[in-house]
């Protein structure tokens, strides 16, 4: 076979392989994007348009006013401020506590460390339904119901998954850095704060992103622990858009979806801002550990 012929064969083989791969990826992408596209489409309809047959994916006129209507039907900005407040504190708590615990598990030798780590990981096996009522009773006895404390304080006591993720990442950081810092007179907290944390930015970005998305979108926690409308978060507020009083009440799907789009926006923005760190953190934390 000539050089040209071999090149052509390799070229076509690669082309067909990539074509199939990208086609598959494209189909998967469409599959994942379809609900998102539907949400965007519905948010621009009126209620009759949502139930029109056949459904029109692109409305005759995109009803931007739905977004304004959502913010006027609910104390939207109040709820957004509540959500942001909770999210920021949870973020701080999670990053501080998880990184500190992970630092201990990855850097400090002590008796029973591995057992403790296994115990910590085993708490991941407990489904939320099992701990829901005992936790609720605990928070009742502390007088924390209808406050933000049950939503925020647990974040300061670590989360096993993030501890695991960070520990794996910390273990990839050479110990020589610690030794050099010790020679310079740094204590453990100083090493943690000034050496480990700056080097672990990608992993911290992953934890921060997951925490942000999880807390921002959390519905169940606020539903269980909050009672007063003034303390509500965005997800709770959104649930109030569903009319449930009258047995056959109409759910305002177009407004619900407009609200969902608004709530989702910070997630999208943060994901794109942190995308580089996110991918790197996942790859390093997940594969090298």
């Amino acid at each position, binding site marked *: 076979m000539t050089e040209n012929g071999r090149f052509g064969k390799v070229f076509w083989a690669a082309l067909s392989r990539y074509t199939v791969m990208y086609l598959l990826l494209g189909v998967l992408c469409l599959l994942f994007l379809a609900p998102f596209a539907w949400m965007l489409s519905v948010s621009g309809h009126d209620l009759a348009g949502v139930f029109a047959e056949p459904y029109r994916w692109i409305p005759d006129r995109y009803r931007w006013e739905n977004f304004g209507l959502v913010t006027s*039907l609910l104390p939207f900005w109040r709820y957004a401020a509540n959500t942001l407040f909770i999210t920021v504190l949870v973020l701080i708590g999670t990053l501080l506590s998880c990184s500190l615990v992970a630092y201990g598990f990855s850097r400090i030798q002590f008796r029973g460390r591995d057992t403790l780590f296994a115990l910590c990981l085993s708490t991941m096996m407990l489904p939320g339904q099992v701990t829901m009522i005992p936790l609720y009773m605990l928070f009742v006895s502390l007088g924390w119901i209808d406050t933000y404390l049950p939503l925020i304080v647990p974040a300061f006591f670590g989360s096993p998954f993030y501890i695991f993720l960070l520990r794996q990442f910390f273990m990839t950081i050479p110990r020589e850095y610690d030794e050099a810092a010790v020679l310079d007179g740094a204590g453990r907290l100083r090493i943690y704060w000034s050496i480990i944390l700056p080097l672990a930015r990608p992993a911290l970005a992953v934890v921060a992103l997951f925490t942000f998305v999880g807390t921002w979108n959390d519905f169940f926690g606020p539903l269980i622990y909050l*009672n007063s409308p003034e303390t509500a978060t965005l997800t709770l507020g959104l649930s109030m858009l569903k009319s449930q009083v009258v*047995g*056959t009440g109409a759910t305002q799907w177009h407004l619900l979806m407009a609200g969902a789009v608004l709530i989702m926006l910070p997630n999208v923005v943060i994901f794109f801002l942190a995308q580089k760190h996110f991918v790197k953190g996942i790859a390093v934390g997940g594969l090298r550990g």
Partner: protein
Amino acid sequence: MKPHLLLTGTLIAASCLPGCGRQDVGGNAEVVYNCPANAADIDALKNEIPAFTAESHVNIKLNPFTGQDKLYAMMAAGQAPDIFYTNTTMRDRLAAEGRLLDLRTVSKGDPFVERLWPAVITNGTSPDSGWYSLGNWSFTLGVYYNRDLFDAAGLPYPDTAWTWETMRRLARRLTLDADGDGTPERFGIFIGSHFVEAIEQMNGAGIRPNTLLASLPDASAEAFEKYLSLMEEQLMPDIRRVQAMGMQPVQLLQSGRVAMLVEAVPHQMLIETLAIRWGVAPLPRFAGKPPKYFRTSSGGLSISSSTRFPEAAWQSVKWIVGKASIYQPNPVLRDLDFVGGWERRYPRLPGSGFREVWTLSLLHDGGDPRFFVRFSSWTSASILERLQPYLDRLWAREIGVNDVRTALPEINAHAARDLQDLLQREGIKPAFRRVIERELRSLERGAEQ
């Protein structure tokens, strides 16, 4: 920033967050109402509560974030809200566990009770004869129809005395297979499978109220056959296809894919979204059978047995149902002009048949959800778990109605295990324990026969 300073500062900030709990306000009794409402309704309620408090010295604290998980967590922690919504499937179970207040204890001699339609009390009554929920809404069933399609076919609109056979005949005339491919583009009617029990009732099925086990008497089987024949004749779209596509029945009517549709009356979403010329007729009667029009109070408001203020909670429930504007005019009250109120709210309603359908439901008691063991009893979950696969095969015409009847002992045995588990629990009230034991004995007798 120093790490310990950041950590300490954040913890201090978190501990200073606003805290609130149940407090009595200015000497008024305060009751917590888990109110499943939207934001606008919550605002309306909040605006009206001060006037109620001034009059009654009862303050209602609204908790708009509701859900069964939350309710159960609150109950387990001894923090049950004073008032909350219960549907028929959860109410009896909670009542059996002693978690609900029997409303008879607080309503004795109260003239408010006289204002309620008797069916509202019956609907809220559990097998131990206790009254555990006050229905806060009510609906009947009707056949919504597309007037343009009737006019185009030169057919008269359904009247209040029409029969099942008339409905079939009209459905046949309205079914359209323009391209002749054997699959109609337009079907005459659509009836959701969850409404079959209403058809059974109309056909005279004598199902004992508050039974906990499934049965399929002859009249029920006959109603099933009639329902199935609509699909077999292609007068109705295949129910599995409609379910699989997740279609809202209202879409079928709006799009002209069906000419008639059985749905709840009133149906707010339908009234607000249908853009066609429509009318509504009562469910068709069965020839030779007395008219029966199903009407339900669709769950209701219950009071926790652990409330500190039973009288205040009862006063609040009465106010919510009878005065709060979001429920008015409320169809559960006899002395309010419900139809007139809705006709004023929705100008499409006068002349639509809405008034006639509602009036018929008041004149002829067509049973209530307590008859609907398959969908509305405390055993409906375990019954449906085993029954649904048979129903799916029935809709697919893989089996017949008699096969479903043959499977009933197996289905009921499954439900009986659920009941036996309940009997093992210590907190079950004696009256409910007796009901469960009665049901289990009847099952044993059936098995022996």
